[in-house]
């Protein structure tokens, strides 16, 4: 993984989040939904990692598991030097101020019975010993920072537009001066003109406070705008992770290629050959053997049905998990992979 010199702020190793399925007469566990199945990535301080993928691929679950809103099944989540995957409740609570979250639906993520002031002050109530007056002042400052009128502090969330509500959510996430913010599709519920405002606000705040983002989205063009690196997820696994330019210019994994070819083209005269994927995403409760993408891949080979591909670096900083690059790869892992292939055959 990149940057060996400085320690990354966030380091996720082999994160697995499996949800049990109970069935039968005795409600015994009969299987599990592998929502996130062995995800690894690093995020350096001040960086934005975009996490893209289609609906149901485990992006949001991944984001929530990283903040320990779910208890992960397996893996290591190192944020600011501490492995939070195994922390007990007390230590985890003490660690909460470092990491915060911005939610997808700004309507649902704000308590309708609390005023804007109470919502933004909630993290302060929980983690600081500020006086009421200090909290008041801090809330006003945060409202300024996210571009909300101070005079609206006493109002309730239903009185605001979607974009304003998302600003309230962002102000709440900023209240404790976090280092790392998971943005879980923060723009998916907004209309296009407001999306740009919110994304620009997130960028401004990143510069101002030196924030690190995990930006979860299915909007590829928005991710291209905000992210420094992009990870593509399919069925609970990362299939490709690369710097922004490399990924958008030369996608390596067939799924990334298909995903990018689906981005709408504004110029009607300019037609690109789209890669249309056949079939549906397999159930995460019963993923296919071998490569997860083998059921829909346009360039599927025999080996894909048997062996799970491993991540390998194809260009500086660009990693993909695909058997297509087994022979062509001239990196250290290549002979190993070929050996693996031989063993299977």
């Amino acid at each position, binding site marked *: 993984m990149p940057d060996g010199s400085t320690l990354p702020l966030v380091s996720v190793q082999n994160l697995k989040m499996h949800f049990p399925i109970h069935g039968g007469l005795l409600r015994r566990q009969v299987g599990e939904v592998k929502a996130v199945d062995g995800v690894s990535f690093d995020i350096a301080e001040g960086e934005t990692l975009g996490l893209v993928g289609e609906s149901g691929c485990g992006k949001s679950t991944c984001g929530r598991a990283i903040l320990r809103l779910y208890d992960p099944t397996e893996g290591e989540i190192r944020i600011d030097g501490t492995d939070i995957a195994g922390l007990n409740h007390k230590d985890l609570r003490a660690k*909460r101020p470092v990491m915060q979250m911005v939610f997808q639906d700004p309507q649902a993520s704000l308590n309708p019975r609390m005023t804007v002031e109470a919502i933004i002050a909630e993290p302060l109530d929980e983690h600081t010993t500020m006086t009421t007056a200090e909290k008041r002042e801090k809330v006003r400052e945060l409202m300024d920072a996210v571009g909300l009128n101070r005079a609206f502090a006493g109002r309730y969330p239903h009185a605001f537009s979607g974009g304003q509500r998302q600003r309230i959510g962002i102000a709440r996430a900023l209240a404790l001066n976090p280092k790392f913010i998971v943005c879980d599709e923060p723009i998916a519920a907004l209309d296009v003109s407001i999306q740009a405002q919110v994304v620009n606000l997130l960028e401004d705040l990143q510069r101002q406070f030196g924030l690190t983002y995990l930006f979860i989205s299915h909007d590829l063009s928005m991710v291209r705008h905000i992210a420094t690196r992009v990870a593509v997820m399919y069925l609970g696994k990362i299939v490709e992770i690369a710097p922004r330019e490399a990924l958008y210019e030369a996608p390596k994994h067939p799924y990334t290629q298909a995903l990018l070819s689906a981005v709408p083209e504004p110029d009607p005269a300019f037609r690109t050959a789209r890669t249309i994927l056949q079939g549906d995403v397999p159930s995460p409760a019963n993923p296919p053997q071998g490569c997860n993408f083998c059921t829909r891949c346009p360039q599927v080979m025999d080996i894909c049905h048997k062996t799970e591909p491993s991540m390998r670096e194809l260009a500086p900083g660009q990693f993909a998990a695909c058997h297509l690059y087994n022979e062509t790869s001239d990196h250290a892992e290549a002979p190993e992979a070929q050996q693996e292939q031989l063993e299977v055959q």
Partner: protein
Amino acid sequence: MTDQTATADPAPVKAAKERGQWADVWAQFRTHKGALIGSGVFLTIVATVLFGPYIWTVDPGYQDFRSRNMRHILACFSLPWGEIASCFTSPDTAAVNVTWVHPLGTDNIGRDTLARLLFGGRISMAVGLTAMAIALLLGTLIGILSGYFRRIDGPLMRLTDLFLALPLLPLLLVMVLLFRERLSSAFGPEGGIFILIVCGIGITSWMPTARIVRGDVLALKEREFVLAARSIGTRPARMILRHVLPNVMSPIMVSATLGIATAIITESALSFLGLGFPPDFPTWGRLLNDGVQYMQQYPERVVWPGALISVVVLSVNYIGDGLRDALDPRIRGL
């Protein structure tokens, strides 16, 4: 409202409206006509039963044998036109059995109905309000605990099923038999039976509230603002008080208003069976039940207490409706 107005200069929007939350609640409550009338009626009845016995000082237990089975004074209207006025001025000589000494009439052993209604109102209202409060407290507590903490959900809900399956009257009968003596010796005969009845009704009527609250809490728990609070690190106790309880107020309010009615009526059923207050101790329920057998000749004996119970229940319902609206910021329009 667009984002442009939010980001614009804050000067045009004055933050002058700095009144408290309860001022807003009151302002919204005042706009609900039914709730205003309801609270007016309710407060009037409460004041009447509280202070009435000091003004109408007739002893509700005194048996005036010479004027048994008196009609109420309005029975004069049943006479032919010419005799109505004389009936009101000198009721003793009228063709109907009325008197100004007992304006609402007397019962079959000559006790004054007005005095009994006033005293009975005190007991019925106290039983209704206290039993409702106990049932509400228990129901809300158990509903929230079982909805919020998954581990105790099963046991608590089975407990609720158990209580629902218990037949109410035999249970109360057993309770009365077991505890009447002990409570009576500790708190006096009336105080003891009051505690017994209130607790009996309270612990046998919390189940619907618990189920409704649990259902709402289960739905609320999956809302994103609860997840957001968890990502902040809010502790369960604060989570319940700040995020869960305010959002389940509406069903609790509805249960409360219905609970008062049920409690008053259950108390009357108990008194009817001889399990409640002593027979000479008036409550609205007992007056109603005593009147039933004379309903043909003296319909007023059923109408007075029945109408009072209905009016109390109706006004409490309206108050609950208004309060529910007033406590919801979306309806309050802020």
